[in-house]
């Protein structure tokens, strides 16, 4: 029991920082190393860490299955949405410079939304795969 307590306390201290780091890597990806993929993986790692310490049932309550499944698809749709928005505003598919009044600001906006879409899909997929593996083990024990 003592070991369990230490792990829980440390997890409670660390998980907010890991989540914050994931957000930092996501949004600071323009100025330093980082970007969508890394942020998505770190976000999934934080939730997996929570699931390892507190159990799969608690993790399922915090991040329920329908949310994870929709995150997988929504990310790809955001990416496609940015592309289609470029189409609707007069350029080619995935043209960013038509997205705003100024070509450079359009690029910024496009890159921002594209990275958000990528991070959502990557974190959703990693988490879903973890849930599937862990769930298979649970049902096999019966």
């Amino acid at each position, binding site marked *: 029991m003592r070991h369990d307590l230490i792990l829980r306390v440390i997890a409670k201290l660390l998980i907010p920082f890991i989540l914050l780091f994931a957000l930092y*890597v996501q949004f600071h*990806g*323009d*100025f*330093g*190393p*980082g*970007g*969508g*993929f*890394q942020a998505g*993986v*770190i976000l*999934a*790692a934080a939730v*997996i860490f929570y699931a390892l310490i507190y159990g*799969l*049932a608690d993790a*399922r309550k915090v991040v329920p299955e329908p949310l994870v499944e929709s995150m*997988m*698809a929504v*990310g*790809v749709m955001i*990416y*496609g949405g940015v*592309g289609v928005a470029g189409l609707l505003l007069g350029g080619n598919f*995935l043209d*960013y410079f038509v997205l705003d009044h100024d*070509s*450079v600001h359009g*690029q*910024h906006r*496009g*890159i921002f939304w*594209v*990275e958000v*879409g*990528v991070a959502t*899909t*990557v974190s*959703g*997929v*990693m988490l*879903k*795969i*973890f849930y*599937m*593996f*862990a*769930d*298979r*083990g*649970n*049902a*096999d024990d*019966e």
Partner: protein
Amino acid sequence: MAITVLVIARSRNLFGVIVLGGIYSFLMATVLVAMDAVDVAMTEAAVGAGISTVLFLGALYLCKSEEAQPVNKPWLPLLVSLAVGAALVYGTVGLPEFSNPQAPIHTHVVPRYLNDIKTEVDVPNVVTAVLASYRGYDTFGETTVVFTAGAGVVALLRRRRNKSKDRKA
């Protein structure tokens, strides 16, 4: 890293093999930082040493076995590997040397990226700008690949609902 790889090849305890795989990914991330590839190093560390190890351990828990003793000495595969290695050595001697600014990898497209990013995109991280803007279509395909992998795993591992007992969750 060479030592890690050799121990992986010889070890029979699967749990040890997976942990050594994680150590190997971490060392590879360090080498990548030495090669100035900071984005790639961060991704390799997170994905290789993090997610890969977690997935391997999950699969190992579901499989629950050790590696059996190999039946015969692996001379033929060793010979094949060494032959492939020799062919590769013969091929790479013609490639440009390490850190040669005249190599083709540094001409053609890269000066255009490095020079024009300030005016066209104005994002200091060149790798993110190229990935999201200049080569955005490839990244779209990659996101779709990740989604397909998730869908594939769901299709492979989904529980059948014809069991009459309740699921614990």
